[in-house]
């Protein structure tokens, strides 16, 4: 049971993480320049597309008199068709994402949140709607949605390893899954195929700590998962390195295979690297198929 005081302290803690996260995400987002992405055909929108000769079906108020005055025929001014796309995000908030091997390296969760939020900012600027999978936060646009996103992402998940949630996605929308994908691969596979079945395509971003890639351990060691639920004891950790790396490569290969089959895009990001690179890739990957 939480007392009001504890609740308030927790709340202020959570809130305090907020503005920096947002600020950082905003900052990160400014590194990517973009314009509104038009549909490349005439439709509803702000940007000029073309003048076309007026048809008899056109209403008189649609005629652009300024253009028509310069010629004998009447012209109608058409604007580019702009529609908003829905992007559903799933950012892994499980305990395993809370790992960081060095105090100079952010936790995986932090990095994942940052990239997700920055991507959201970019998408908002592009006029898209962003939401979270599941039914917590449907896709919407606007500054308020950004606040809601940030607040939702600040929550931690109780689970040891995260499993993607494929529910609540609109058909043919886009999706972004950010996780370390170290948990049960079968759940990820299910979620992904579900999404693909609904015509949802998107991006998988695997966030890993450099230590998870290198396995620089030796000697007698007991490895524990972040909540202590899983344990593995070895007498000679150095001996396990090759086999661990093998398994990691296998896992990545599995993911790549999955992505290939469903038409999703996959990239691996290390927390020791710059977040901007991952964001750039993410942005590019989202825009590629739209």
């Amino acid at each position, binding site marked *: 049971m939480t007392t009001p005081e504890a609740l308030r302290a927790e709340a202020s803690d959570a809130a305090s993480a907020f503005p920096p996260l947002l600020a950082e995400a905003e900052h990160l987002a400014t590194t990517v320049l973009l314009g509104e992405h038009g549909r490349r055909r005439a439709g509803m929108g702000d940007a000029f597309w073309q003048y076309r000769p007026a048809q008899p079906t056109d209403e008189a108020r649609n005629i652009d008199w300024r253009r028509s005055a310069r010629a004998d025929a009447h012209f109608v001014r058409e604007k580019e068709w702009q529609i908003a796309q829905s992007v559903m995000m799933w950012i892994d908030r499980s305990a*395993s994402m809370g790992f960081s091997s060095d105090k100079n390296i952010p936790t995986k969760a932090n990095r994942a949140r940052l990239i997700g939020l920055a991507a959201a900012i970019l998408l908002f600027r592009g006029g898209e709607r962003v939401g979270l999978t599941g039914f917590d936060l449907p896709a919407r646009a606007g500054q308020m949605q950004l606040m809601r996103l940030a607040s939702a992402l600040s929550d931690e998940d109780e689970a040891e390893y995260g499993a993607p949630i494929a529910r609540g996605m609109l058909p043919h929308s886009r999706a972004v899954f950010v996780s370390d994908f170290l948990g049960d691969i079968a759940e990820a596979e299910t979620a992904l195929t579900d999404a693909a079945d609904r015509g949802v395509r998107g991006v998988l971003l695997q966030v890993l700590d450099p230590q998870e890639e290198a396995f620089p351990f030796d000697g007698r060691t007991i490895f524990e*998962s972040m909540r202590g639920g899983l344990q593995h004891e070895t007498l000679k950790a150095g001996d396990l390195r090759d086999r661990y790396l093998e398994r990691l490569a296998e896992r990545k290969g599995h993911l790549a295979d999955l992505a290939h089959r469903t038409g999703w895009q996959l990239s691996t990001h290390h927390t020791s690297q710059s977040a901007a690179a991952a964001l750039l890739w993410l942005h590019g990957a989202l825009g590629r198929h739209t």
Partner: protein
Amino acid sequence: MWTLGPLGFTAPWLLLGLIVLPILWILLRAVPPAPIRRRFPGVALLLGLKDRESQSDRTPWWLLLLRLLAAAAIIVGFAGPVLNPQEQRSGDGPLLVLLDGTWADARDWPRRMERTSALLDDAARRGRPVAIAVTTDLEPDLTMQPAESWMSRLPSLAPQPFEPDSEALLDWIEGMEGPFDTFWFSDGLERETREPALQALETKGDVFVYQTPRPVLGLGPATFADGQIEMTVSRSSGAGPGAVTVQAFGLDPAGVERNLAQIETEFEPAARTLDVALTLPPELRNRISRFQLDGVRSAAAVSLTDDALKRREVALIAGREEREEVDLLSPLHYVRQALVPTADILEGALDDLLIAAPDVIVLADVATLSPNEIDVLSGWVEEGGMLLRFAGPRLAASDVSRGEEDPLMPVRLRAGGRTVGGAMSWGEPKALAPFDEDSPFYGLSVPDDVVVSAQVVAEPGPELDERVIAELTDGTPLVTRKILGDGQVVLFHVTANAEWTTLPLSGLFVQMLERLAVLTRPERPTVDDLAGTTWAPEEVLDAFGQLNEADRLNGVEGEVLAEGTLSAEVPPGLYAGEEARIAVNVIKPDTELSPAFWPARIPVEGPSLDQERPLKGLLIAMALALLTVDILASLLVSGRLRGPRSGIAALIALLLMFPPGAEAQQGGELSEENLAQIATSEVVLAHILTGDPSVDEVAEAGLRGLSNVLFSRTSIEPGEPIAINIERDELAFFPFLYWPITADQPLPSREAYGKLNRYLRNGGMILFDTRDADTAGFGSGSPEGRRLQAIARALDIPPLEPVPEDHVLTRTFYLIQAFPGRYTSRDVWVEASPPDAERAPGMPFRNLNDGVTPVVIGGNDWASAWAIGARGNWMLPVGRGAAGERQREFAFRFGVNLIMHVLTGNYKSDQVHVPDLLDRLGQ
């Protein structure tokens, strides 16, 4: 104490702990290194992986061994192991501590005193009465006293530069009331006293002996042969390192004692003696006053030289050179023969010879001299020359010194001389009478076959009697002498050849020449040579080889001296007689140093034989080192040397293993160009390195402080001060040198003096600071003051005066009248103003338009007052409270004035004329 070979244990029961080691082995073996818990999300991937080998669940054997060794080292260490444990001397009766106390003891006297003091401690614990005696300085009626009362007397014990008198020692031992045990500190040399003394002591009780096995070194007297100086270095045993350095000391032309020559040589293995030969030019050779074995503190390592090494220059002039003669008839033949082995002979014209400044001029049968020659010769004699004249036919025939005494003749002569025992005369040739006691020849024995058949005869007179130094049996003077100024004129009333007498044929002739100091004494004087003479000690050696003035010693008779036995009355040293000086050295030509051997029944203890050495610290340190290695090894085994935070562990382990060692060497000395560049790019104050690091540091800090003050208050903006080595660095770049004087500063070399003088003449300034104004007034003979005198002797320093009130130094920047540093003495000296300086009418100052004073000398320790530390704080306190700060302020003001004076010269002196000039321009 429980001993095991050379090892002893103070707490042997602790060694039982070693039994635990095997148990420890089993325990340690069973316990694997503790696992590390690591949070790692990747564990999901690890599940199901099995270890291929299960090696590290047991501690590796080498780690076990390491730990066991550490444990063993700790156990053994705390058991108190002692290498070569000293047997505790048992016994409760009275104890006599007998020290040989000869010169051979001097080299390790402090160690002997330490051992004695340890003995006293032991005796005090056991309540044994003790007596301490030195064989060379026996105290009659010595009684046993409590050990504590001896403690305070230990520092007054000192070795003597001679060996004990055997009879006195035996008598003394007989006189001691027994029974008592004896602890005998032997000096390690065999002498005949040993055996009987040992026996006498053994009748009183047990005897223990302490003896150093290191060989005793001695330097024999220097002799001159075949153009080189020869010496023998001897040692008491053939063991040990054989390298020796023989140094020759003497006064240099500036009157400073210096190491004039040095020869490094080495004993053959097992050889007991070593011959050393040294070839030196005569000029250098005559300067040598002593030889010394470098690094040996003992009277035996010093060999004083006397006249034996000095080769006198003798000029020979004969009156009848033009005659073609066979050698044996030459008037100079016998003199020359007598002189050649031991003196340098000059022959030629009198004028040329005088330029060479000979010690002695021999005129053989030279009658008349030109008035000019007489003047020159008289002057030379009065300055200390010795004119030795022989008679002969020409002198007999001339009118020299006939009616009136010739200044260059000791007596008046009768016309013609006399002939006795010739073919045409009555009487026998006359023999020589024994020499008088007043005569310098006293003690020489007269051979029977020396006769005189012809001579010139002295005119009787009131002063004749005292001028005769040798006469014939009938009382006729044979040799007369007259003192003239500092020199003397001696006349042999016979020829220098065998024409008139057989004297030149006899050995007596050579001895007489030697007594007259015409000859260099060739060998060690015999008893006969010295019979009847008295020698006053000038300088004596103490047992440590230090030369001291001999003020309170009585004169020594020649016979005693010739005998060569050293004693308290005849310590080794330099003895001066009437004409010559004799060096008495510890080591005689026939001295042989042989090690003392003790019968097997006597326990002999020596410092290096079995010095007690506790090993506890070593073992504990070893255990700590092993444990440190163990830390590293454990980290390695358990994988903590890799992975996160391993860097810290490794760093800590390394720090443990290698504690911060010596700091990196300082940047080294400035190269020549570098120095020139730094010193000339801006004004730089410099100080001279004294060799004393603390003084140098203060000097540098002081100049830095002064530089700061100059920078902030004046337009002078000096750079970092520079330390100058006068032997190596160029001085011309520096307007100002600060030279703190320490008592043991080495004298500059000749080249350095040249540089300094050039520096002073070209307008440089040196501030000499003896830093002793608190204890000494200027020139009052503090050690620093004396050193400054020695250093400044060869410097081109003008006449000095205390800073006058109107000196420009008092107003170059601040108006000051006192020049305090850390001390506030008023004795600060500068170049004296010219005597004709006068005060211009209406002017407050005299017209002193001369240059900058080249030296400022004082003892106020200015650098200490100026010195600032690395953080800008004062390095040293000055005075007390506000008054002290004011004093420091004035010290800085003096410094500012001084540097202003150096850089602007007498500009301020000129300023006083400005009103005058303005006055004139206005009209």
